[in-house]
C-alpha cells in the first residue's frame, strides 16, 4: 500500500490538473454532446447489445457538465482500472507503476479528441472504454481465480454470450484475450508447468477459449436478429483517423504483457523501472492531449455566449494572444453586437483565420457554433436546420436540442417547444424553461423583421451571415446596423450612405467610431457625401488626415501595412486597405 499510494496520488493530481485545470471547457462541451436521458426504459436498453454499459457511461459522461464532478468520477474509474489490472494479473507493488499504463492510455484516448468530439458518433466516448475495460480486466481476473473446471466452462459460455449483450465488444475481448494469455504463459514461462499434465491442461483451456472466443461471436452474429457491430461500445474512428486508436490499443494490449510476464518481486530496480514507465506514459498523455489554445478559447467564448455573458466573451477574445480562428472572430463580433459596441470597437479586436487544428477538415465553425450564430442573428430557419441536421447525424445531444427548443420558442411554436423542453428536462443538467429564455428572445425578435425566402448556405455560416446582412435592405434598427457593419466587413460599400443616414438619428450625439471612419473614407474615395454636416469627432477627423498624409507619403500597398499598423491598426481604414485574404469559415 505504501508503494501504491504515491502512484495513485500523482495520477489523481495529474489527471485532475489536466482535465479541470486545462481542459475544463472541453469537459463542459463533452457533456453537452452526450445524449443521456434519466428515464430510459431498461427494456429498451436491453434490446441493444451494450445498451446498459453505454447508458451508464453516458450518464457518467454527462456529469462533465459539472467539470470537477465529471473529472472526479473519471479519475475514480481510471484509478479503479489500475487496481483491477494489478489484481487481475497479480502485479506486485514494486511493479505497480506499470498498472497505470491502461489508465493513461484511456485518459489520452479521450483528451486527444479536440474538435473530433463533434463528429465521433458515440454516446459516451469518454466513459465507455474505461467502464468496458474495467469489466474486461475484472473478468480476466475472475478467470484466473476459478478453480473448478465446470465454472471455467460456464465462464467461457456466459461471458461472450450474455456479456456481449451487456458489455458489447468488451465481453468479446475477454475470451480471446484469455486464450492468448494462457498460450503466452505456456510459451513464455514453460518452467512453471513442470508436469506435462499441467501444461497440457493449460493448452486445452487455451484451445477451448479460442473456440469459445471466436466461435460464439460468429454464432451470435448468425442468430441475432439485429446487426452486430463488433465495435459496439467502443469508440471507432474512420480509417484515416486510425492513429487515434493508438492510446486505446496501448491501454488494452498492455494487459497482454502482464499476462506474458509475471510482474512479481519487490526489488528496488523494479520500482524504479515501473516509475520511469509511469512518468513516461504520463508525459505522453499530457503532451498528446489536445490543449489547443484556440480550441479551448472558442469553447470558453461559446459557453459564455450561451449564458449571455457577452462581456466575458469579449474579455476572452481580448486576452488571447495567438491569431484567432474564424469561430473566435464570429463570437467576438456577436458579443460586440449584443453589447452595442460593434460600431465603436469591432476593428480593434484581433482578426484572423487561424486553422482549426483538427486531424481532418470539416465545417468546424458550423459544428461548433453554427446554430448559436444563426439563432442570435435571427436566421431561425438555419439555426433550426443545422441543429436538426446534427441531431440526425450525431444523435439527440442536448447541445442541439437547446437550439431546437430556443428556435421553436422564438417562432411561437409552443407545442414543439414544449416537446423539446420535455426532452431537455429528462437530462441531468440541461433543463430550461421559457422564462429563462425570454430576455434572450426579446433581444433577437427585432432581427426577425425580414421576408422569408428559400435559401441555402452550404454550411458556410459566416459567409452566409455576412452576405445576408450586407445585401439586405430595410428592417429594424438592429438589422440596418448589421447591414451597415457587414457591408463594411465585406468591403461592399454600395449601401453605405443610405444605411448610415437611416441610422444617424438613432445615434444621438455620438456616431460610432468605425462608422465615422467609414464615412470619412467614403467621402474621400467617392466624394459628394455631406461629411462636413456630420458630427464627426475632431480626433477621428485628425487621425484620418494623418492617415491620408502618411498614405500619400508611403502609398497604401501591403508593404506599408506593418508601418501603419501601430497607429491605424484598430481603424476601419486599416481593415479596408490592408486586411485581405481572410477566410470566412
Amino acid at each position, binding site marked *: 500500500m505504501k508503494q501504491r499510494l504515491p502512484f495513485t496520488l500523482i495520477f489523481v493530481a495529474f489527471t485532475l490538473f489536466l482535465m479541470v485545470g486545462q481542459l475544463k471547457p472541453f469537459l463542459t462541451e463533452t457533456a453537452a454532446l452526450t445524449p443521456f436521458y434519466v428515464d430510459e426504459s431498461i427494456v429498451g436498453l436491453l434490446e441493444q447489445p451494450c445498451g446498459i454499459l453505454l447508458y451508464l457511461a453516458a450518464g457518467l459522461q454527462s456529469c462533465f457538465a459539472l467539470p470537477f464532478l465529471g473529472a472526479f468520477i473519471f479519475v475514480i474509474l481510471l484509478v479503479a482500472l489500475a487496481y483491477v489490472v494489478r489484481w487481475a494479473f497479480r502485479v506486485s507493488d514494486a511493479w505497480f507503476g506499470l498498472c497505470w499504463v491502461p489508465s493513461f492510455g484511456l485518459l489520452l484516448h479521450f483528451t486527444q479528441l479536440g474538435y473530433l468530439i463533434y463528429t465521433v*458518433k458515440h454516446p459516451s466516448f469518454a466513459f465507455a472504454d474505461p467502464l468496458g475495460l474495467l469489466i474486461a480486466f475484472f473478468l480476466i481476473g475472475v478467470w484466473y481465480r476459478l478453480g473448478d473446471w465446470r465454472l471455467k466452462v460456464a465462464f467461457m459460455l456466459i461471458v461472450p454470450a450474455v456479456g456481449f449483450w451487456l458489455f458489447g465488444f468488451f465481453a468479446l475481448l475477454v475470451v480471446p484475450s484469455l486464450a492468448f494469455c494462457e498460450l503466452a504463459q505456456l510459451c513464455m514461462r514453460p518452467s512453471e508447468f513442470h508436469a506435462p499434465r499441467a501444461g497440457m491442461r493449460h493448452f486445452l483451456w487455451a484451445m477451448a477459449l479460442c473456440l469459445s472466443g471466436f466461435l460464439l461471436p460468429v454464432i451470435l452474429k448468425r442468430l441475432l436478429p439485429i446487426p452486430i457491430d463488433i465495435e459496439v461500445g467502443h469508440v471507432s474512428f474512420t480509417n484515416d483517423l486510425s492513429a487515434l486508436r493508438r492510446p486505446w490499443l496501448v491501454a488494452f494490449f498492455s494487459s497482454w504483457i502482464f499476462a506474458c510476464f509475471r510482474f512479481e518481486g519487490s526489488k528496488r530496480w523494479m520500482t524504479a523501472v515501473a516509475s520511469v514507465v509511469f512518468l513516461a506514459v504520463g508525459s505522453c498523455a499530457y503532451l498528446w492531449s489536445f490543449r489547443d489554445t484556440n480550441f479551448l478559447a472558442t469553447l470558453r467564448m461559446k459557453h459564455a455566449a450561451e449564458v449571455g455573458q457577452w462581456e466575458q466573451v469579449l474579455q476572452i477574445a481580448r486576452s488571447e494572444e495567438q491569431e484567432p480562428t474564424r469561430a473566435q472572430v464570429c463570437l467576438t463580433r456577436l458579443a460586440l453586437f449584443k453589447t452595442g459596441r460593434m460600431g465603436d470597437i469591432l476593428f480593434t479586436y484581433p482578426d484572423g483565420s487561424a486553422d482549426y487544428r483538427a486531424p481532418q477538415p470539416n465545417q468546424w465553425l458550423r459544428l461548433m457554433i453554427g446554430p448559436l450564430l444563426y439563432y442570435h442573428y435571427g*436566421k431561425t430557419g438555419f439555426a433550426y436546420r443545422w441543429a436538426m441536421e*446534427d441531431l440526425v447525424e450525431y444523435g439527440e445531444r442536448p447541445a442541439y436540442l437547446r437550439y431546437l427548443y430556443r428556435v*421553436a420558442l422564438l417562432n411561437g411554436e409552443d407545442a414543439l417547444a414544449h416537446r423539446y423542453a420535455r426532452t431537455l428536462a429528462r437530462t441531468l443538467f440541461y433543463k430550461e424553461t421559457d422564462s429563462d429564455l425570454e430576455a434572450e428572445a426579446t433581444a433577437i425578435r427585432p432581427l*426577425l423583421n425580414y421576408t*422569408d425566402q428559400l*435559401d441555402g448556405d452550404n454550411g458556410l455560416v459566416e459567409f452566409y451571415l455576412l452576405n445576408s446582412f450586407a445585401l439586405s435592405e430595410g428592417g429594424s434598427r438592429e438589422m440596418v446596423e448589421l447591414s451597415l457593419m457587414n457591408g463594411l466587413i465585406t468591403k461592399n460599400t454600395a449601401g453605405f450612405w443610405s444605411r448610415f443616414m437611416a441610422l444617424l438619428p438613432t445615434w444621438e450625439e455620438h456616431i460610432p467610431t468605425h462608422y465615422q471612419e467609414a464615412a470619412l473614407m467614403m467621402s474621400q474615395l467617392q466624394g459628394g457625401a455631406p461629411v462636413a454636416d456630420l458630427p464627426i469627432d475632431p480626433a477621428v477627423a485628425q487621425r484620418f488626415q494623418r492617415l491620408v498624409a502618411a498614405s500619400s507619403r508611403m502609398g497604401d500597398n501591403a508593404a506599408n501595412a506593418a508601418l501603419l499598423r501601430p497607429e491605424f491598426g484598430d481603424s476601419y481604414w486599416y481593415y479596408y486597405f490592408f486586411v485581405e485574404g481572410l477566410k470566412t469559415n
Partner: protein
Amino acid sequence: MKQFDSHKIYAWMWALSITLLAGCRPSVPSSYIEVEYPAAVTPDNDGATIPPNIAPLNFRILEEGNEYLTCARSAKGGQLTVSGRDACFDQGDWHALAEQTRGDSLYIDIYVKDGTGWKRFAAQRYFVAEESIDPYITYRLIRPSYVTYEELTINERSTESFDERVIYENMRLEDSSQGQCINCHMPRNWNRDAQSQFHVRQALGGTIFIDGNKAAKVNLKTDSTMSAGVYPAWHPTQNLIAYSVNETGQVFHTLDVQKVEVIDYASDLILYDAENNSIQSIDRTRCDFESFPAWSPDGNTLYYISAHYYQRAEDIDADLDNNYDQLHYNIYARDFDQKTRKFGPRRLVFDAESRGKSASVPRVSPDGRYLLFTLADYGQFHIWHKSADLWVLPLSPRPVHCNSAATIPPSPDSSTCFLYPQELTPLNSSEAESYHTWSSNGRWILFSSRRDDGNYTRLYISYFDNGGRAHKPFRLPQRSADADDLLLRSYNAAEFLVRQVKATPKQIAATIRGDASNASYTGSALLRQEPDCTAVTINTDAAARRGESVGY
C-alpha cells in the same frame, strides 16, 4: 393423508392468489363529485370511431390529482377499470370489451382524487365500428426529413397490439464512408401475396422487391429516364408498377416555420414491368411535372398529379426556388388497357389550380368510389405545408342527384350533375395532413398529421363510412401514453398490411449487398404519342374554371 394435505395447500394457494388479484383490481369509488366537462387527456381521442380489433387506446390524464382511476364501460355491458395517471389497459381485456361493444359506444369514465375527494369527469366516448382494421401497418421512422439521414428504419407494427419490428434499417450496411437512404415501402394489394418494394438510395442503391421470403434488387434508372423510380403504384392485378421519376431538391426557409420545401424541378411517370424487368415511359413532358401515380382498384385507370410549369427563367432550379408557391398540381387520369398495356390520353380529374390550390397523393378507395387526396396552397410535398388538408372526390359512376349538397349545380342546358370534392373536415387540423392510405376493406383511412406540434408526424386513423363520411380520427395507440411525446422521429409513408412481411432484415441486407439487375427501357406506353408540353395544357383562365372540377 399426505396427498390430501398437498391438495389442501394448493387449494389455499389458489384461493389466496385469487383474493390477492381481486384485491388488486381497482374499483370505482362509491362517492364522488360530478364534473361537467371531460378530463384533459393525451392523446385526446374523445369522440373517435375505433375498430373493434384495435390495440388499447392508452392515454395519460392531464388533470392534477393524487389518485387516478379510469373505467372503460361498454354500452352493451361489461367494463374494465385501471388505476394510475397513465390509463394502460390490458390487451386481452380491452379486446374482449371492444369486441363486445362492436357497433355501439364505449364510454371512458375518468375519476381523479384530489384534496377534496374523488371527482368524476364527464365520460369520453368512442364508437366501436362494426368493421375491423387491417392487422398491420408499415411506415418509415425518420427524423423530420432533412438532408442528413441516420438510423432510418422501415417498420411493421401490429394495429391489434403494440408489437413493432424493423423490416429493414439503413445502418445495417452503412459505414462511415457510405450512407444509405431507404424509403417508399409499398406493399402490393396490402401485402396479400407478401409482395412489397422499397428503395435504397446512395450506396448499394436500387429498388428492393420482396416476394415472400425472397428479395431481389433492381436498378430502375435507365439512360432514357431522369431517375430511378420514386413514388410507386402497384397495379392491382398485373405485376406492373407505375413510378414517378423525379429530380427532387430540398431547400430551406430562412424564417417560415414550415422550414423545408421539397421541390420537384422535373418529374415524369414510368411503367415498370416486373416480369420482364423493363420500363416504359408514360408521361414524359418537360413542362409538365407528373408525380404520385395511383391505380384504380380495377386497374383500368391510372391517376396522378401534374403541374404545368410556366418557365420564367433560364435556370429552372433558381426560378422554382423563388417561385415555389406558384407551382400548382392538378389530378389527372389516363385509361389503361390491360391487354395491350397502353395508356389513353390524359384527362383532368380535379382542377386544383383553378382554386388556387395544389393537389397531391391521389388514392382511390378499394371500392373505387372515392378519390382521397391532399390539398394545399402549392407544391406537392404537403407534409411540410400547414395548409395541407385531406379531401375526397366521389368517383361515383352512378347518376347523381342534382339537389345534393355535394354536387355542382347543373347548367341550364344540362341534366348532368358533377360531384364536388369535399374536405374531410373531421380529419383536418391547422397543421399538415398528408400521406394517406385506405385499409383493404375501405373503411379506415390511415394518414399522417402534424397536428400535435407542427413538426413531428404522427399517424391517425379515421373511420370512413359507407355514406362517404369521415369520422373523428384517433392517434395510433401506443403502449406508453407518452411514447409519442418522447419520440423525436416522424412516422412516414404509412401503408396498411393484411399480413406480415416475410423476408428478414438479414435476407434483405444480403440482397442489398448483391448486384442489381438493370431494367431496360422499351419506349412509350402511350397509345398515341403526345407532343411535349401541349398535352391538355390548361388554356382557359384559372379563375374562369374555378369550381368547375369534373367528377369522374
